[in-house]
């Protein structure tokens, strides 16, 4: 992904896209309100959160034991487990399985780890067709983009755009009606499921005591992916474990409530090995690939290891005033929002994502929303310190931050800077879009048309953002009882 050099560049572009901003805010609000209702109706939310935290902390502190136990039990159930140190090793393992099966087509259900290792590109380069089957992911895939939200990937697409994408994909006489669009997706995908050689899923939780893989979905696509093709590949982060099914009851209560405000997810699927003797459906082979990719490095760091407690619910995104303004793409990483700002720089060694910890106002709403009580905003501060200690303040970045601080401090200069920028973009703008492949927005415009800087400036929007900030901290003060 290449959408501008710095998070602030990308944010500026995102801030110019009114639909995106409205959609992100609307969705985040909806999820946040639903979460509030769902946690209120359950009651004693703080006790649930504490329990969630205890379970995750215990698991991560004894990951060596539970991962060993999990692997042994998968093997006992007839599955196959492999361990990948990094993204390229994991991709190679997937490729080897695909080659051994002489597979031509793959269906996938939503998996952040698969985005993390970039498996779609690897498979496409090997001439294997890959179809995302989560409706949102499918839309994003057709648009050749990446998800903008962990839970609702196509948050940034409107129905007209979706209709156009589906028409391009072969849909005839489609309207923008949700039912028509969903119907096209169902028919198209059903065919893909029945034809596919291999299904790839992520893993919400692995259960150590049984070697089971647990998947949460609302659409039921994971069930098609795991049951219809002959081979099932599971990509899982090494920390994604729970010791027992008793612990799963806690997570099954915490995760859907935090993610979408549902009391429970529509489908919870528990797979223990491949199909057995006497079964007439289900994959015949199950391959689990366990990925480290920078995770184990965090275990030794007392200030960072809790990042491995994350259950990927997305609640921190929905409450984050910065995410709500700029959306997921501005982060330029697979994992967006507050958790992305923490995870991306630790999963990717080097300076590539070292700018993300600055895409935060440190208001603390993320930590309060987190169902397993990860102190996300403390980690953001810590990562900023770590950057400085490592001397990671690249010239461009230094300038950006200096410029950033400087501009906001001196409103007059900022206005001048913005006016210059607006004048500067003049010749490049066609019908309100920037088409040139030069200048600071180059990385972004190479991939798509960038919306022209809006009449409302970044600074004016920053004002909105600050307003939101205040409301958010008031609101979270109210909900965090």
């Amino acid at each position, binding site marked *: 992904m290449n959408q501008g050099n710095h998070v602030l560049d990308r944010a500026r572009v995102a801030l110019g896209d009114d639909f995106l901003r409205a959609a992100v805010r609307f969705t985040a609000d909806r999820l946040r309100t639903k979460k509030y209702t769902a946690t209120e109706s359950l009651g004693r939310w703080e006790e649930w959160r504490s329990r969630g935290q*205890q379970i995750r902390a215990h698991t991560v502190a004894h990951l060596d034991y539970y991962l060993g136990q999990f692997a042994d039990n998968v093997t006992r159930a007839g599955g196959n487990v492999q*361990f990948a140190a990094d993204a390229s090793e994991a991709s190679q393992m997937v490729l080897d399985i695909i080659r051994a099966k002489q597979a031509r087509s793959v269906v996938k259900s939503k998996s952040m780890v698969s985005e993390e290792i970039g498996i779609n590109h690897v498979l496409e380069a090997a001439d294997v067709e890959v179809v995302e089957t989560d409706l949102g992911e499918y839309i994003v895939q057709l648009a050749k983009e990446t998800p903008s939200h962990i839970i609702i990937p196509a948050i940034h697409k409107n129905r007209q755009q979706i209709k156009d994408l589906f028409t391009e994909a072969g849909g005839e006489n489609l309207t923008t009606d949700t039912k028509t669009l969903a119907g096209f997706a169902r028919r198209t995908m059903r065919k893909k499921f029945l034809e596919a050689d291999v299904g790839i899923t992520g893993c919400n939780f692995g259960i150590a005591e049984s070697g*089971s893989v647990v998947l949460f979905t609302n659409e*039921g696509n994971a*069930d098609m992916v795991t049951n219809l093709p002959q081979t099932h590949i599971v990509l899982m982060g090494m920390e994604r474990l729970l010791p027992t099914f008793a612990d799963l009851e806690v997570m099954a*209560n915490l995760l859907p409530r935090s993610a979408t405000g549902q009391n429970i997810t529509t489908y919870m699927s*528990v797979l*223990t090995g491949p199909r057995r003797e006497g079964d*007439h459906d289900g994959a015949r082979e199950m391959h689990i690939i366990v990925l480290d990719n920078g995770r184990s490095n965090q275990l*030794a760091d007392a200030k960072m290891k809790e990042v491995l407690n994350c259950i990927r619910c997305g609640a921190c995104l929905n409450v984050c005033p910065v995410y709500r303004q700029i959306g997921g793409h501005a982060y330029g990483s697979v994992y967006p929002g507050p958790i992305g700002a923490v995870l991306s720089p630790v999963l990717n060694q080097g300076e590539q994502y070292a700018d993300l910890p600055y895409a935060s106002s440190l208001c603390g709403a993320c930590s309060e929303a987190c169902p397993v009580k990860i102190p996300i905003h403390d980690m953001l501060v810590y990562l900023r310190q770590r950057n400085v200690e490592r001397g990671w303040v690249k010239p461009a970045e230094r300038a950006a931050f200096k410029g950033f601080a400087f501009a906001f401090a001196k409103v007059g200069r900022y206005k001048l800077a913005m006016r210059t920028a607006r004048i500067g973009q003049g010749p490049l703008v066609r019908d309100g879009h920037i088409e040139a492949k030069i200048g600071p927005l180059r990385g972004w415009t190479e991939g798509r048309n960038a919306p022209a800087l809006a009449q409302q400036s970044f600074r004016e929007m920053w004002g909105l953002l600050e307003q939101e900030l205040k409301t958010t901290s008031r609101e979270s003060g109210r909900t965090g009882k």
Partner: protein
Amino acid sequence: MNKEAFLNRIATQIGRPRPLTKAPSRDVVGIPDFWREFNLSSDERIVHFEERFTGLGGEVRVVDDIAQLRTALAGIMADRKPERIGMWNDAELEQWVGNSLEGQTVLKWGVDPRDQFSSINIGITGCSAAVADTGTLVLACGGGRGRSVHLLPSIHIAMVGASQIVTRLGEALERVAKPTEMDSYVHFVTGPSRSSDIENDQTTGIHGPAAVIAIVMRQA
């Protein structure tokens, strides 16, 4: 990377010379105590299940006995007019259903060819348990209880005995998720397949069934 090296690396980072091989002791396991005390009476369980299941877009018919169950089932068939029905190959389910599907084309899982199931309109199953608190059907699949029977059709009908309804999800897990003797696939289904991926507008039946009907029989 091989397993040993992978686990060793984790152990080292945690601060152990080699990976733990003995189960670590735990202060707390699973749900908080107050939740364990949550217990509904058998009548309440039916009411809760119905409320929750319906609230999420499912349909519930509560019947007293087998005769009523068969009438309800025949009624649904008259309503929906399926061309093809798929059904678990399961003795108890067959006994419940009895003659209520007379005149229909019914495919049995594991008996009739598997590929014919991709065109069934209605799938009929039993269940292993149901959860009152969440309105969830629990389907442990294996052998004659095929996964495709409830995944592929646009309507899923599940028979539920009142005594199968438990209060909490955890009780259902205790019944079906026994680590060494569980089925290869256990599915927890709460309402129809749904998505809000198009402009937050909720739609059902995106992949799985668009309608899920639970027939709850009191005398069972």
